């Protein structure tokens, strides 16, 4: 026996799941040469954190790491925390090198090159960027008796880049950048129907896909 009410709810649920806002994305890649990965974990992903206001979201880092290390032909990624602890304080946000031009100076510091060699990490990928609300508008009002009426929209931009550095040869290997914008809508006729643009997820997918392709 089926209940018609449940069917309607199911149909509405399917509609909500299948409808999303609009997302446009662009990915640029620039590679100097190919990487040489060994069987052991020789890549770490590090989030750029320049101050308390500017920090690549940990959720985004988790997404990138998961996308690279799972599925067919996963790329082994080392623990970022273990790497930073081994090389403390040289990769702490306050003093981490901001450009590959600073790498030779860093590697010349006592014990740093030896410790990096010992850690087995050859490449680091600096992931920098954030997802921010760019614009929004509309008007939506709700009443407990008659429901919600109106229309809201908002646009988010997700700009990220991944810079790949070779720690052994102290040089930059390449750069991947992604620029995604997504507009979400929320029309409401009694019931609000969110049409969410998954902006950050699209940026993660694009960046991880390019990074994985390059590291394999």
């Amino acid at each position, binding site marked *: 026996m089926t209940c018609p009410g449940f069917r309607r709810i199911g149909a509405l649920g399917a509609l909500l799941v299948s409808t999303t806002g609009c997302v446009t994305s662009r990915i640029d890649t620039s590679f100097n040469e190919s990487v040489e990965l060994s069987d052991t974990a020789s890549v770490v992903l590090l989030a750029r954190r320049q*101050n*308390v206001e500017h*920090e690549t979201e*940990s*959720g985004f880092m*988790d997404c990138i790491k998961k996308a690279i290390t799972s599925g067919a032909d996963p790329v082994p990624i080392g623990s970022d925390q273990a790497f930073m*602890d*081994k*090389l*403390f*304080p*040289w990769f*702490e*946000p*306050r*003093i981490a090198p901001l450009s590959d031009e600073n790498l030779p100076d860093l590697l010349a*510091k*006592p*014990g*740093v090159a030896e*410790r990096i060699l010992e850690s087995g990490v050859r490449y680091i990928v600096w992931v920098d960027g954030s997802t921010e609300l760019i614009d929004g508008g509309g008007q939506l009002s709700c009443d407990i008796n008659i429901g919600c009426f109106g229309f809201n929209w908002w646009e988010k931009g997700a700009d990220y880049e991944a810079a790949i550095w070779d720690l052994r040869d102290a040089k930059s290997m390449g750069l991947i950048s992604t620029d995604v914008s997504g507009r979400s809508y929320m029309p409401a006729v009694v019931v609000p129907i969110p049409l969410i643009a998954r902006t950050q997820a699209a940026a993660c997918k694009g960046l991880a896909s390019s990074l994985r392709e390059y590291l394999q």
Partner: protein
Amino acid sequence: MNTDLPRHGPARSRSRAPLPRAQCARRCAAAALVAVGLLAGCASGKQYLISVDGSIPTPLVESLPVRVGVYYSPEFSNYTSAEESLSGDTWQVAFADLQQRYVHAMLTSAFDEVVISPTATPGTDVSYDVLLVPEVENFSFLTPRESGSKFFAVSMRHFVRFIGVDGTDYGAWEINSYGRSRSSFGRSIKDLASEACLDAMRDLATSVIVGLPEEIVNRGIDGIAEQASRGPRL
């Protein structure tokens, strides 16, 4: 006023059997508990007690041939901050001896010899070249609700005073440290607060290990500025 008029509908006029005394007492107690809970909720915000504990890695630096003395005041060694947030909640953050452990670990890595001084002024017969006196000036935080974001943010301001063995005051070095929590999914507010505090403490340790030798050089402290100039540089 006519009290004989029926004030309620027919349902009220139905006769009800009296409740057993035990059941009545339970209902009264439950109602009293709800009332007390509501009154307490209206009267004040929540109280949070955060105990911060962690460890800091050994810094990858070479120690300098400098002997420093350090005085840890009781306030510094067992620092506790209590403040009321904008939303009316009370936050008590207890660092216990964490600050002293972190700072001391940095000093013992940065310098060949570190002596704990019992006082904030050098005595007549001391075995160090300069006395350092770390102090906490300020501790503040923003809860996710206040910052309108998903993370908990902490900022701290410390001073390290430099005192020569002859009592010369070489001034104080101001250190501003920041920390914030990371992923908030499925974690308690206490976990987030503790993580942000530890992050700020790690930032403080970074400043101390990298900045202290440079500060000694900049202040031209007698007899050790030359040795300190060989310290870690950015």
